[in-house]
């Protein structure tokens, strides 16, 4: 079983790369998804690709697996130029991807899913069910999944098992390179451990593994080398043994953001309670108990939790978007009822939503019109629009947020993700809100804009604004927050003060006692 396979002979020290990518570029319209990517894979290594969302990892994987063609650059696989025309072509070259989102057919059996690419046939051309099940068994045994019945439907399995079945399917055909795109995103700690054992055993068979992850501790646990992406470029490749997580983060985010993040939020005065939430139950909450907390002026309260913990639902409930089942909201100590966003806005609250394309912006409308959307009274008189005022407001807002745009009347869709997010911020800041609620404020935003958004938010807190921030990025929460509430299953599992901040503490609370339920689902 210990197989360091065909490599042995022709290896000199430097030119032994299985795959080498140089100067790879891929543009989508004006967006440079890949803007000069270079890296190489040594046979039999586990190679991590890390970088922020939108840094280019996913695009690179799609190029390598034949989903997109590339615009410029060169890929050499096994000493020959490699330009996969489609995913099937990539597979015949031995490049397999296990995607982040599952590509399984829920109602079919495990065996059917594993053989989906090449179903075995009998001599009459009918499906050879026996052979199919046999092959599936072999594939599952190979990755140690002896306890899964190949005839079970995928639907009946937990998330973790589905992930492993994807891997089994990918390994079934002869692969030389296996790309795992965020394989641990939905796994619990225990399941992750199992996955890592499997990765090690695959590695031992001589398969080269590309591991994409947001969790640096995982990268440091199982990888040999790491390549860091930022804004569509590869920054550097390092031996894991020569670097540290802090060093990798610095490369990931760039100097400017690293400074913003290291400084955290400076000590500042905490004011009175701006928003008192008492036993608030959203309709999706399955429990009787609700959520309670106080948000003070000049305070940043972060809300952490896994997907499905009820974070966005909580924010929508507070802002009056969705009806509440029970509970009270106090604004400056006075009980209030928001029957819609209009009331919440009138009470001095702004809400930067998670999804700027569907909820935050009107993409086809001008930047200026988007900024005035929540500020019609500023740019109109007796119902008539004052275009001059509208542009003035937009320019001032743009200046304050360092918005980069062509013309203030260009459609919002002409902007990059980071600048679109700034437009959403500008829309609310023009109202001078007393409380600003932000749901994933930097999702899909490049690192430069991220640093700027952090600086803006810190500035707001200094002015005494109360911020309520939901984010899935723990470093972001730990940078910005004074306190972090951790939610799981629509309940507050704990509150952490600044001195107690660590990813480990947050995750412990986020998984709570529900680890089992989460994993097996």
């Amino acid at each position, binding site marked *: 079983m210990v197989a360091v396979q065909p490599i042995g002979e022709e290896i000199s020290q430097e030119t032994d790369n299985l795959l080498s990518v140089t100067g790879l570029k891929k543009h989508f319209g004006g967006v440079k998804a890949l803007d000069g990517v270079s890296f190489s894979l040594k046979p039999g290594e586990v190679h991590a690709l890390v970088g922020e969302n939108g840094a280019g990892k996913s695009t690179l994987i799609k190029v390598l697996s034949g989903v997109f063609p590339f615009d410029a650059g060169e890929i050499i696989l096994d000493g020959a130029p490699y330009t996969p025309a489609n995913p099937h072509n990539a597979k015949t070259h031995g490049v397999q991807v296990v995607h982040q989102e599952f590509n399984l057919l829920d109602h079919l059996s495990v065996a059917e899913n594993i053989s989906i690419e090449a179903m075995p046939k009998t001599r009459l051309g009918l499906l050879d069910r026996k052979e199919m099940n046999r092959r599936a068994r072999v594939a599952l045994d190979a990755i140690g999944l002896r306890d899964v019945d190949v005839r079970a439907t995928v639907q009946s399995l937990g998330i973790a098992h589905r992930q492993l079945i994807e891997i089994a399917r990918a390994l079934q055909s002869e692969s030389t390179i296996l790309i795992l795109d965020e394989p641990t995103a939905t796994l619990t700690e225990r399941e992750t451990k199992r996955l890592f054992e499997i990765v090690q055993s695959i590695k031992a068979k001589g398969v080269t593994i590309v591991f994409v992850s947001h969790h640096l501790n995982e990268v440091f646990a199982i990888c040999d080398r790491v390549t860091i992406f930022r804004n569509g470029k590869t920054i550097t490749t390092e031996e894991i043994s020569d670097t540290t997580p802090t060093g990798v983060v610095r490369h990931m985010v760039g100097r400017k953001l690293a400074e913003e993040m290291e400084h955290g939020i400076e000590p500042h005065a905490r004011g009175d309670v701006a928003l008192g939430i008492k036993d608030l139950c959203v309709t999706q909450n399955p429990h009787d108990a609700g959520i309670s907390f106080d948000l003070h002026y000049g305070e940043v309260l972060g809300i952490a939790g896994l997907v499905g913990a009820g974070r966005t639902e909580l924010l929508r409930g507070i802002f009056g978007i969705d009806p509440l089942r029970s509970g009270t909201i106090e604004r400056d100590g006075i009980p209030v009822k928001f029957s819609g966003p209009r009331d919440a806005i009138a009470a001095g609250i702004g809400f930067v*939503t998670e999804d700027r394309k569907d909820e935050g912006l009107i*993409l086809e*409308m001008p930047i200026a*019109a988007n900024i005035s959307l929540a500020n019609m009274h500023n740019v109109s008189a007796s119902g008539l629009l004052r275009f001059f005022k509208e542009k003035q407001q937009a320019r001032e807002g743009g200046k304050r947020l360092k918005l980069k745009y062509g*013309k203030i009347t260009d459609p919002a869709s002409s902007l990059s993700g980071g600048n679109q997010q700034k437009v959403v911020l500008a829309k609310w800041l023009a109202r001078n809100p007393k409380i600003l609620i932000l749901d994933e404020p930097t999702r899909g935003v490049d690192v430069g804009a991220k640093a700027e958004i952090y600086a803006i938010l810190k500035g707001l807190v200094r002015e005494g604004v109360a911020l309520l921030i939901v984010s899935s990025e723990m470093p972001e929460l730990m940078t910005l927050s004074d306190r972090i509430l951790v939610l799981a299953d629509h309940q507050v599992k704990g509150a952490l003060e600044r001195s107690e901040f660590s990813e480990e503490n947050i995750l412990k609370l986020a998984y709570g006692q529900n680890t089992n339920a989460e994993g097996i689902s």
Partner: protein
Amino acid sequence: MAEQSDVLAEPTGRDFSIRSIINNAGIGLALLGLILFFSIFTEHFLNPNNITNILTQITINLILAVGMTFVILVGGIDLSVGSVMAFAAVVAGKAITLPGFGPTEVILLACIAAVTAGFVCGLLNGLITSYWALPSFIITLGMLNIARGAALHVSDAQTIYSFPFAFEEFGSAQIYGVPVVFLVALALVLLAWFVLNRTVFGRLLYGIGNNEEAVRLAGHPVFWYKVAAFTICGLTAGIAAVVYMARLNIASPIAGIGFELNAIAAVIIGGTSLSGGRGSVIGTLLGAFIIGVLANGLILIGLSDFMRQMITGVVIIIAVILDYYRARYAKK
């Protein structure tokens, strides 16, 4: 890259309308082409009488299409305008033939009755569609039947006629060959343009058509804005009813069958997107002209009414295909 155009656009402050003019340029050129074609290939097309004729013929469609533009801009559709027009006409016809009033009074009464009837139907369309978030296609299809039935019921399925002379006079009056009723329609177009481009209300209608949720989350009462769009559409059906009565001197319960489709066609040919949020009432004006000029010109050229209908259909399809490319171009 946009630096120079920035300078150009700055002082005028009207890039909204400049953009809409560019958007409309294609439709305008198409209309110009049609006019040129018919002027060359038919003898009487440019005859002043024929022009007056065309203007008279497109008036009612134009009025209905102005209201339809509001509804389509918020992503809805109103199939009931033809029936609502008939219903409003019959109600107004009843009012105008009331005994014991002077001519000015009954005319006023009739106008109020027609506009009120249209208003109520539009309001109902809007309330029901918005409250239950139902497809306006179905609700207004229901209203189409309700209004038609009501028109037949109120009139006992009889055509109402013999209106005051002053009313007929208004219907056939001309100023330098331009029918007064057409001027009414044109005034509505200008008013609608002003509302859509210069008021907060209009801006938010565009916003709702593009992204209703974003407008709602910005604290605007989206519900009432949508109701207002449908109500405006009903109102224009009421106004169309008055014009129709004045022109033909009758109020028939079976008037206006299929008028909703012509109105929708004018809006779509005019470049307003059926999914809402994009388009202009100036485009609608041009769209109504294209339909009117085609109808008139094809008859002059000697084509049968059937052929004319086929060609109008082809034009609608071409307009939508062009709109598809325009949307793709705009995305780039």
